[in-house]
């Protein structure tokens, strides 16, 4: 696992139009020089937002990657939830500090309902 290089690639991609053009032309080729595993490479080229979140990619990096792929905000949040459901708690990085057990359990630990968990604050949505 090389979370550092996954995030390093996304950092470069987010801020450099040349990297964005290279990624658009050849996603796997754009990863040359970044020491990532096959699983990480697949997650970055597919892209698999949920798996990347599970791996521990910082959301401040990941949200720009989602925007690059025209993934709408609510869909972006849902893909991360699905990733935790499918793969388990975040396994590294800042969100693994205290363990991430999913949005409902996290809401309960704060004494809050999870109705706002879609990011809109709309009850029942």
């Amino acid at each position, binding site marked *: 696992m090389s979370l550092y290089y996954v995030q390093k690639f996304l950092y470069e991609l987010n801020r450099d139009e040349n990297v964005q053009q290279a990624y658009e032309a050849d996603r796997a080729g754009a990863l040359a020089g970044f020491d990532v595993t096959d699983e990480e490479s697949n997650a970055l080229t597919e892209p698999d937002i949920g798996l990347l979140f599970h791996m521990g990619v*910082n959301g401040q990096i990941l949200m720009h990657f989602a925007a690059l792929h025209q993934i709408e905000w609510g869909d972006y949040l849902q893909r991360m939830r699905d990733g935790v459901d499918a793969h388990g708690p975040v396994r590294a990085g800042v969100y693994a500090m205290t363990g991430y057990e999913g949005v409902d359990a996290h*809401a309960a630990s704060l004494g809050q309902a999870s109705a706002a*968990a879609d990011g809109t604050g709309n009850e029942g949505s």
Partner: protein
Amino acid sequence: MPLVYAGVCSHAPGITGRADQADPDVRDAFYASFDAMRRRIEDAGTEALIVIAAEHFANFFMNNMPSYAIGMADSYDGPIEDSDWLGIDKVRVPGNRDLSERIIKEVLETHDVAYAEEWRFDHGISVPLHFLTPRYDLPVIPVNINCQGPPLTPVHRAWNFGEAIRRAADAVPERIAVIGTGGISHWPATPDSGKINKEWDLDFLDRWARNDRDALLDYTDLQTYADAGQGGFEIRAFIAIAASAAGALGTVHFYEPIPIFSVGCTIADYDMSN
């Protein structure tokens, strides 16, 4: 010239990028409070604006992460984010390299800090400037405290940094305003995005308004993460501003959770008249 203004505000990208999804009454009241903050900064005769923000991997990464950095250039470009996504056009913002260098030299007397002659703004600075200097005609000095990639600077060092910023601002002839930007409790860009711990926020803002140093430094990252999310680490910017205004009392002009903006939206400042 003694520091003429010290305040804090939110900077979440949803404030501009998802504006059409918020309750218009609450959103417009927040925008109005932002505009009132702009007028107070202008009425103070501000000649340069120091923006202490937690940036989000626009310039700094874990290969060489400074705990503290100050920009030292005559202009800065931003935002790095897609303009449609953020709702802010890309623009060149004026800086003041000479003033930055004088500020940095004075800060270094008591607090180590990196300097950067290149700096691209992200929403941490671009969203506040969109409201506070909408004509982009006020020189800006960007400042970053690493709140994203642990290990993070201890909060008592953020206080020390704020004191150094104050001393540096007082030492130059220009009329300097300083703002801190960031969240209080929030879980930005995660599955919990939209959650806001209002009770925690109001307790923090009470400590901030009283400018109670001991109470403001009584936070650990582990507890902050549990109660206020990783976005809560950005209290360092608010704490630095409190230190820059040590002895002054603050007013919270606006606080309201706006979940689609992913943060309890905040506008507050200190009374610097004394």
